[in-house]
């Protein structure tokens, strides 16, 4: 099977049952994406597929041979961090760090959804997608953090989104 991950071509000889997550972690040495639950319940495995965030544990690798896949390794490097990675570091958006790659990929995908105007469950007006702390929490609810670093995660994301303190406090935006 052939894959394009972080702009690089890969070949792999896989058992048909292999998930996209296991392909990366077990076969390609891309261990940044984490396995928390393997059942879509935690978000630690979040990757960007054709720009959209998904849980890579609940999809088969074989179904993604024609897709552009981006993992945490493809977002930035230690020397050249993605702005979201940089913000997580500065705001201490983690403790153990296990959920962090998934949080960061998810946050990048989420900001893109906001740019497209997608509403959320807490949006008062479905036709506007204004961010706030409440909106960030709802939109990031698919990423669980056992260390409960949530306040700092929201700080990091709101900084990258360029929210003012007043914008952050809006409820039911």
């Amino acid at each position, binding site marked *: 099977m052939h894959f394009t991950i972080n702009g690089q071509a890969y070949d792999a000889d896989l058992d*048909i049952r292999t998930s996209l997550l296991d392909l990366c972690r077990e076969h390609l040495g891309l261990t940044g994406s984490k396995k928390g639950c393997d*059942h879509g319940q935690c978000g630690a495995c979040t990757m960007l597929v054709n720009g959209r*965030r998904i*849980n890579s544990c609940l999809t088969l690798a074989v179904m993604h041979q024609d897709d552009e896949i981006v993992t945490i390794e493809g977002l930035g490097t230690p020397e050249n961090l993605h702005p979201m990675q940089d913000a997580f570091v500065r705001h201490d958006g983690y403790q153990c760090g296990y959920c962090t790659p998934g949080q960061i990929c998810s946050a990048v995908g989420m900001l893109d959804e906001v740019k497209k105007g*997608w*509403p959320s469950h807490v949006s008062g007006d479905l036709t506007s997608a204004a961010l706030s702390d409440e909106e960030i929490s709802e939109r990031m*609810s698919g990423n669980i953090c056992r260390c409960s670093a949530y306040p700092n995660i929201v700080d990091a994301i709101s900084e990258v989104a360029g929210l003012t303190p007043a914008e952050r406090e809006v409820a039911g935006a």
Partner: protein
Amino acid sequence: MKTFTYTKAQSPEAAVAEAGEGVRFIAGGTNLLDLMKLQVMTPDKLVDISRLDLGRIEQREDGGLTIGALVPNSDLAADRRVIDGYPVLSRALLAGASGQLRNKASTGGNLLQRTRCYYFYDTATACNKREPGSGCAAIGGFNRIHAILGASDKCIATHPSDMAVAMRALDATVVTLKGDGDRRRISIHDFYRLPGDTPEIENVLEPGELITHVELPGPPQGEQLYRKVRDRASYAFALVSVAGVVKVEDGKIASAALAFGGLAHLPWRDFEMEAMLVGQAPSTALFEAAADKLLAGARGHGSNDFKIPLARRTLIACLRDLTGV
């Protein structure tokens, strides 16, 4: 996971031609793979339908919408025509799962997702739905999330979908393609089955029948809302949910469509209760009478007894919001 063979379908016709005994379609995979990992579902063959050209939402001349079976839940929720004409559907979708899951979950797969009954997921326990004739561990066991309406002594599971509840309130139609090339149009009201003696059969689809589209009639008049009551504020299945579309005219209820999640083996609707509301002036007394009607046959199984008063209060609160009482 039990192994399987895999083919990628190039057309709906090719997909149904591949189908048969032991074969499953895979769309988003978010429910099927979850259950395959636990060997609750063990297909011999997967037919990948995820790249079929069924991913569009189209406006029909009669004013309704035709939604391709592969439209992801997130795209459907954010579609401007859905937001404007069917906000109850957007709200129901946005109340379900997570951003990542909604990006993968398809319209067809969402309708067909299976129950979240703990025993259905646990192959070490008895479950008539998973293994017909083995018994039901939920009856007399933990059944906090289980049904209070329409259950049987074989199965008390609930249907977990939020989207399907809105689809039921909106009188949707499921359009299918069968192996012999026939197309069917099935009203959502006839689509799902009560558990009865065969809880393993959840809907009227024949083996190998492909959902190609879901049709909505033109946007209904009146107020719309979706309210979901759950154990945490996000990323949790409904204990009770209500999809409501109610129109008030000249101080009287002119029409009412109310569908319920979390209460039964299927998204529940009680047309007799709706008829009680129509033509009446909205009032708390009327709403209480409607709740009495809805729940007249309700039965708790121990840990889910709380759902009866919860459903009652949720319905009354929704009717107040929908009518401004």
